[in-house]
Each structure stands twice: as structure tokens, then as C-alpha cells.
């Protein structure tokens, strides 16, 4: 397999004319740029990639990758290695040793992508090993600059052109393979982020509002939510809400209710919540009453409070939040309209029968 690939790469390189005699002295800055970043090198690597895998030199590397079977990452690794083997004869031994170690690491990782689905969708391949860092004037260019002990340095005036070409061309191809091998894991990351964004949207749209005090309190509540997540448990503290107090004998009143303390529980999607709070209500022109308020998501809040801490039906007020009051009004209005429509229909029917 390796020999066949080596032969194929050698022939391809010969065909595209990249085996012209290379000078042994150190490269210039322009040569470094040409071999490591310029269109010429990129096009050559693209052609090589395409030739290796589809035997269609005109097809671009990216189109080839898009059509590639997912279970062939190891074969892609073999191709990268074959390219290296073809280009690396007689080059600087330190650079060669380091590149071979990096390629071996990548080959192991690519095999794992083929065999371990969890690794494929959660981690993916490592692009960093083959990223090329452009050096400032007078500084070396680096491949895998993050790990000084295994970085491959290409230095203006010192590194010979064959070494630069072998290192850069192989690195470009290997990094592209790594980008491709990280595609599933990146897509998985984006799915997780999209789901989190929906949870925040739901929390804003369907959740209970947060006052400044509650924003502070809930923020520092360690068990209320996970990192980067909207609250799953929301604490209520000194939260004022307009309500309507419905009474048996005392007469109905508007009342400003203050929820002293309470707790809400959200579903996983943060689209629904239930909870309760201990509250004081202040009906217009009357004394304060205390009691409990129940929350049912966006429908509203329903509470019961008692005058003078006397828990009798005569002293009880049923609290409807403004939201709930509006909901009931709309609902009763619709019921009334439907009842009237039915009554009219029946009347018509009777009239018709008569």
C-alpha cells in the first residue's frame, strides 16, 4: 500500500514538474512564502491530493474531500505520509525526524476516527500540529509552534529549499486532512451551541422577569444553573406585581402584591415553569394581607391571601396577576361570545321550525 502510494505520488510530482533541481543553500524569505503560503504551493498540494485519491488532477482537493467516504481517514493519513516520503529524501534530519513524529501522531489519530465514533463526533482531528506560523523578518517560520520541543523551524538563509518544500507541502496537506477530520466534531459543537441559544431565547420569552435584586441573587446561586446556561431554578425575592383581589364579601380590589421569597422550576428547554412564593398584597385603600402565590409559566400567577392572618373564607382574597386576569377576561369573553352564538343558532333553528 505504502509503496504504491509512494510511486503514485512520485509520478504525480514528476508530472506537475515539482522535482526541478533545488538549491542546497538556505532559502530566501520570498522562497519561504512561495513554498508555504503562495498559490503555487497550494495549487500543487491540491493537485497532489486530487491525484492521489481520484486520479483526476483537475478536481480540487476540497471537492475530493467532500466526496470522500467517512471511513477512510487512515487512507488519507497514508497519502500524507506518501507525499512526505516522496519529497523528503536527503533533507535536514532534525526537521525530518520531527515531521515524521508529527505524521505518526496524526496517523494514530486518523485511525481512531475510523474506529471510534465518539472520538469522531466529539473531538476530531488536530489541525494545530500542522499549522504554519509565518515568521517576522529574521525569525523562523514554524510548524506546530505551540510545542517548542516538537516544532519544525524553517529559517531564512539556513534551511534548504528541499526541506522547506517537503515540510510545508506536507503540512498543508496534513492540516487540510485534519480540518476534514474535525468536521463532524465541529458540527456537533454547533448543535450544542444552537440548543443552548434556544434555551436562552425561551428563558427570555417564557421565563419570569428578573429584577435587579433577583439578577444578583440568581447569578450567585450555584445550584440554580450550569455554566453558560439560563437558570433551571429561579429564586424570587421582593418581586412586585400588579394583581386583582377577588373577594367573597369584602369587595374586589386592585392590589399591589410583593412576592417576598419564592422558587420556580423550569423544564429542560426553559419553555415552561411552575413554582410558588410567599407574598404580601396591598389592596387599594386597605391593609396588607399575606399568603401564597402559585406560578404557572406565562399563564400567570394565582394567589390566596388573608386579612389579619385569619384563615377564613370571609377574610380570604383570591389574587389574579394582571397576566392571568387578562387571560381569564379573554377566555371568558370568548366563552361568552361562543355561548351567545350558540344561543342565536338555537333561536334561529327554533324560528325555522316554527
Amino acid at each position, binding site marked *: 500500500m505504502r509503496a504504491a502510494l509512494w510511486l503514485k505520488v512520485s509520478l504525480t510530482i514528476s508530472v506537475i514538474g515539482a522535482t526541478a533541481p533545488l538549491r542546497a543553500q538556505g532559502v530566501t524569505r520570498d522562497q519561504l512564502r512561495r513554498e508555504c503560503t503562495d498559490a503555487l504551493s*497550494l495549487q500543487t498540494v491540491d493537485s497532489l491530493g486530487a491525484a492521489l485519491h481520484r486520479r483526476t488532477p483537475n478536481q480540487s482537493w476540497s471537492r475530493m474531500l467532500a466526496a470522500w467516504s467517512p471511513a477512510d481517514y487512515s487512507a488519507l493519513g497514508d497519502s500524507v505520509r506518501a507525499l512526505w516520503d516522496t519529497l523528503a529524501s536527503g533533507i535536514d534530519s532534525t526537521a525530518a525526524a520531527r515531521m515524521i513524529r508529527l505524521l505518526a501522531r496524526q496517523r494514530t489519530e486518523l485511525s481512531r476516527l475510523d474506529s471510534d465514533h465518539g472520538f469522531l463526533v466529539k473531538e476530531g482531528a488536530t489541525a494545530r500540529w500542522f499549522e504554519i506560523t509565518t515568521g517576522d523578518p529574521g525569525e523562523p517560520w514554524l510548524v506546530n509552534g505551540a*510545542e517548542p520541543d516538537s516544532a519544525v523551524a524553517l529559517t531564512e538563509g539556513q534551511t534548504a529549499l528541499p526541506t522547506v518544500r517537503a515540510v510545508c507541502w506536507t503540512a498543508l496537506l496534513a492540516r487540510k486532512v485534519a480540518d476534514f477530520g474535525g468536521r463532524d466534531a465541529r458540527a456537533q459543537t454547533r448543535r450544542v451551541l444552537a440548543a443552548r441559544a434556544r434555551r436562552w431565547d425561551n428563558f427570555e420569552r417564557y421565563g419570569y422577569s428578573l429584577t435587579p435584586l433577583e439578577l444578583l441573587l440568581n447569578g450567585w446561586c450555584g445550584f440554580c444553573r450550569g455554566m*453558560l446556561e439560563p437558570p433551571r431554578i429561579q429564586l424570587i425575592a421582593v418581586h*412586585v406585581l400588579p394583581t386583582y383581589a377577588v373577594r367573597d364579601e369584602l369587595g374586589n380590589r386592585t392590589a399591589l402584591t410583593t412576592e417576598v421569597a419564592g422558587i420556580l422550576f423550569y423544564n429542560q428547554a426553559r419553555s415552561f415553569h411552575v413554582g410558588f412564593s410567599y407574598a404580601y398584597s396591598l389592596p387599594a385603600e386597605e391593609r396588607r394581607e399575606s399568603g401564597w402565590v402559585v406560578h404557572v409559566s406565562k399563564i400567570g400567577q394565582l394567589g390566596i391571601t388573608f386579612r389579619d392572618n385569619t384563615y377564613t373564607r370571609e377574610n380570604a382574597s383570591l389574587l389574579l396577576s394582571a397576566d392571568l386576569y387578562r387571560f381569564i377576561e379573554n377566555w371568558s369573553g370568548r366563552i361568552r361570545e361562543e355561548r351567545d352564538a350558540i344561543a342565536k343558532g338555537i333561536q334561529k333553528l327554533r324560528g325555522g321550525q316554527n
Partner: protein
Amino acid sequence: MPKLLFVVHGMGDNLPGWSTDLVDFLDLALSQYPPFDAEDHPFRARVKVEEICYDPVFDKTIEPWGRDRAKLDQWTRDNGITLDDTLTELGVGQLPHATAGFIWETLLDPVLYRGSPIVHDKVRAVVIKQFIDAWDDHLSSTPGAEQLDVSILCHSQGTIVMSDVLAIIGEERLSEFKSFSADKRSIECLITLANVTRLGPGPLIDIDSLTTCVRPQTAPLWSPGKVNYLRRYINARHKLDPFCLFQRFAPAQNWGNRYRLIDDLDHIHQASTHGYKHYLAHPRVHIPLFRAVIDPDVISPQQEQQAIATFPPVMPPDCAAAISTLRQQLNDLCDEPVDENRSLDQWITKGISFFEAVKEAVNACSSLVEGLADD
């Protein structure tokens, strides 16, 4: 290589599309130098820019308080309810009457970010999604074997947000970030203008920007066996910008030649010395930026020397007297001692003094650009 630059705004009012001004400014700055002077949009032509916008998170947090307060006031008036009850007063009183103005729309953003973990997590979640979605889109669409180089330019509060976000992703503080972490990829360059990543009392800072993976590869490893996230770090700080001079970002160790501190800026070309355009106008700032983002050889050393030598320290010259007064006021502000435990309070008081000094300078000389919109 395709170049991708994320731009991240600071505090203040920043709606989607805010970066158009910034990119226009970068185009203008680059076109000062031959051979780019022949092009209309030399920066845009070489760098793809992606904007990060998180200000709506603050707006959505603060604005409902003002709305709720107005509605409650109206409702209590309509229904004859008095707010003389202590508990009710406490409940209603915490809601502000108005949420517009320099304090609410600008100075309070960092206070909310530091003070409320819900706010900072929401901001981080929003920024992470924008950042990773755009990064992945560009990775997927980059043709052939080209290497996509990702850089980030952030200003003021954006430096806190982006530093935190990069630490969360780079160190994979949640497992879903593995494929974008420092273990898998690296960032070409982080450029911070008015770096305030260390602002705030210690207990409120959950991510210490000096100890994370957000450091260049030439710096000591952030953790044994791990790798640093950046290939280069540029940090610009103006001598008369009172916001970034206390609790300043200053690594104790040597971070190597890929960490570049630009702290010799003292020009005054507009009254607000904190604005991003004011930073970027200086060749000491924009030339390293262009070299990092476009190419190390994009501007020659000779061009650089000439640009620095001809850069006027004061603009416009006819406002020299007003600028001299402003310089003195800003110097005094910068020299004020700071109690680190009360740094957020002092952020607000310094901010108000800064605002007043800027307004005074513009009133004294009308041709002096204010520049508060870039804060």
C-alpha cells in the same frame, strides 16, 4: 492564506452593523501606505471581517426594568395605590426610572458583567455562538489546502469578554469545545485596545486573564502538559486612557517576543482617548495590527519610521489649549489611587469625571472631535 478577523466592540451602544465604521477606518489607515494608496478598500480586500455583537444582552437586561417601572408607576396612580409600605417601596424602588444615558448605556455594562454571573454567562454564550459559527463557516468554505488564519481585535469591555470566551473555548471548560480548543487549533493573533480584562474586585473575577491559555506560544505554558492558544498577542494601552491604567493587564513573567505591549501612546486627536479609532489612528498600533493580520512584510520598516515620525501628537492644532487642559485632567484621573476592592465603584466615578472632561474640552474648542461614540 485567507485571513479572518473578528472584531469585538467595547462598552456603550453597539447595534448589529457597528463594525462598518471600524473597517472603513482600517481601510483608510492602510491606504496611507503605498502601494495600498491606489485602492479604495485595501483592508477589506485582504481580510474577511466578522463582527461580534453582544450589546443587545445588556439592553435586554436593563430596558425591561425601566419599562416595568413606568408601567408600575402608571398602574399604581390609576388604581390609587400608595407606595408607602416598606416592602413595596423596596420592591418598586429597585427598578430604575430611566435606563438611558452615559451611565446606564455605557459605564454600567462592565459592572453588570462582573456583578451578575447570569449576565456574563449570557454574554459569553452569545459571543461563543457567533464566534464558533463564523469560524466554522470559514473553515468549511476555505478552498483546497489554504490555511485559515484567525485573528481577533477587541476593545475595552470587549477585551474582557473575548479573553473570557477564548479561555472557556481554549481550555475546553465545557466538553463541547474540544474541537475548537487550544489542543486542536490556534488563534493567529489577539489584539487588545484598552485592555481591561483584570478590572473588578478579585472575588467577582471568575476567569483571571493572566492565568489562562490566552497567551502566545512564546509564553510559559498556562498549565503543565497543555498548550497556549495564541500565536501572537498585541496589547495597546494609551497613557491618558484612565480606564485601562488601574488593575492593568501586565504579565509577571516574560511572555516572549510574540507578546507585544504598546504602552507609549500619548497622542490626543480626539477628546475621548479611550475610543478604538483613537487607538487605531496611531501607526504604533495599526502597523503591528496590519503586520499580524495581513502579512509581516505588508509595511516596510522605512514606511513605519516615517509614519511614526510624521504622526502629530495633537490634533487639531488650533485646539492646543483645550487639549492641554484635557491632558492635565486625564493625567490627574490616571494618577488617582485605586482601591481594588472598590474598583467597580471607581470605574463609574472615573467614567463620570472622564465624560465631564471630554465634554468640557469639546465645549472649549468645537473643532475637537468628541469620540465618545467609539467607547
